[in-house]
């Protein structure tokens, strides 16, 4: 058990292994997002009530899903870091945070734009919108806290603790449309029920969601690799990497 954990937590092992996976994550993720965008924008049938404005769904929903998944990953890594002191977990948490903040902002921005033609307003203080805004502030707070300490370890621990506290917001976001009477609609999809739209509408959305997940993985892995080099620029294996010309793109 312990040798495996030790190996998984080794930056060198992570760098070598992830270098093999990274091109596929970038490649397949890009193909899925490009295909899903073209399909969703040009070929999916228009909504019978919303017309072509419903196409915002194809970026709004994946961004909102990723905003929450990214927070869940960040919190899991924070727990691993706080309990087992594995530095790699902290590097992953730090690498994921800005992307999560960008996805939260994207979901709020695309939702606000979508609200104008469909709700007649770009913002209401309903439970779903407010809890997503809180998620954005949590991300920004976690990123600021990480940089606000003189020692790297102090910043990492403070950011990890705030990440764990912030997890309470995830179920609130998910069930906000159930617990409160919100302007935002309920969940469009669930894992247990048949989708309420035709396949020509939900298939491109599925491609987008899977594509966003792959690109999220690619960005997080790439940023973690950068952080590894930033922290150990004089390690022998990093030297060998540069000298061998194997950049591991």
């Amino acid at each position: 058990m312990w040798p495996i954990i030790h190996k998984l937590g080794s930056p060198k092992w992570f760098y070598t292994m992830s270098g093999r996976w990274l091109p596929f994550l970038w490649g397949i993720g890009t193909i899925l997002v490009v295909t899903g965008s073209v399909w969703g924008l040009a070929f999916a049938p228009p909504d019978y009530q919303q017309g072509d404005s419903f196409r915002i769904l194809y970026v709004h929903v994946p961004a909102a899903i990723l905003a929450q998944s990214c927070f869940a990953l960040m919190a899991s890594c924070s727990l691993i870091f706080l309990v087992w002191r594995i530095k790699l977990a902290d590097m992953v948490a730090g690498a994921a945070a800005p992307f999560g903040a960008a996805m939260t902002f994207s979901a709020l921005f695309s939702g606000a734009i979508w609200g104008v033609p469909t709700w007649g307003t770009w913002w209401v203080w309903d439970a779903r919108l407010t809890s997503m805004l809180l998620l954005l502030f949590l991300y920004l707070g976690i990123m600021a806290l990480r940089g606000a300490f003189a020692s790297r370890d102090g910043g990492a621990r403070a950011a990890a603790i705030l990440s764990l506290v912030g997890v309470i917001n995830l179920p609130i976001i998910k069930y906000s449309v159930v617990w409160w009477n919100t302007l935002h609609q309920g969940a469009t999809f669930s894992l247990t029920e048949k989708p309420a739209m035709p396949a020509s509408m939900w298939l491109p959305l599925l491609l987008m969601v899977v594509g966003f997940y792959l690109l999220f993985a690619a960005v997080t892995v790439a940023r973690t690799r950068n952080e590894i080099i930033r922290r150990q620029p004089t390690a022998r294996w990093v030297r060998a990497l540069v000298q061998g010309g194997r950049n591991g793109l």
Partner: protein
Amino acid sequence: MAFESLADFWAMNGYAVYVWPAFGVVLGSLVAFALYSLLEQRRLLRHVAALERRERQCPTARPATDDGETT
């Protein structure tokens, strides 16, 4: 295609001002993260190469370590 003409597609049947900015911001942020992480990697690897060159010219300055951890 769900549109009569290419002009209709770009106009999104009147919803162009909503649909295109939404796609632009979300997909644009994905592209920005991809480009930034690749540029950052190039910069870091160049930095490591420069450190290594400097050390070769002045061997006592900063020797390589096993883990290379800096604090």
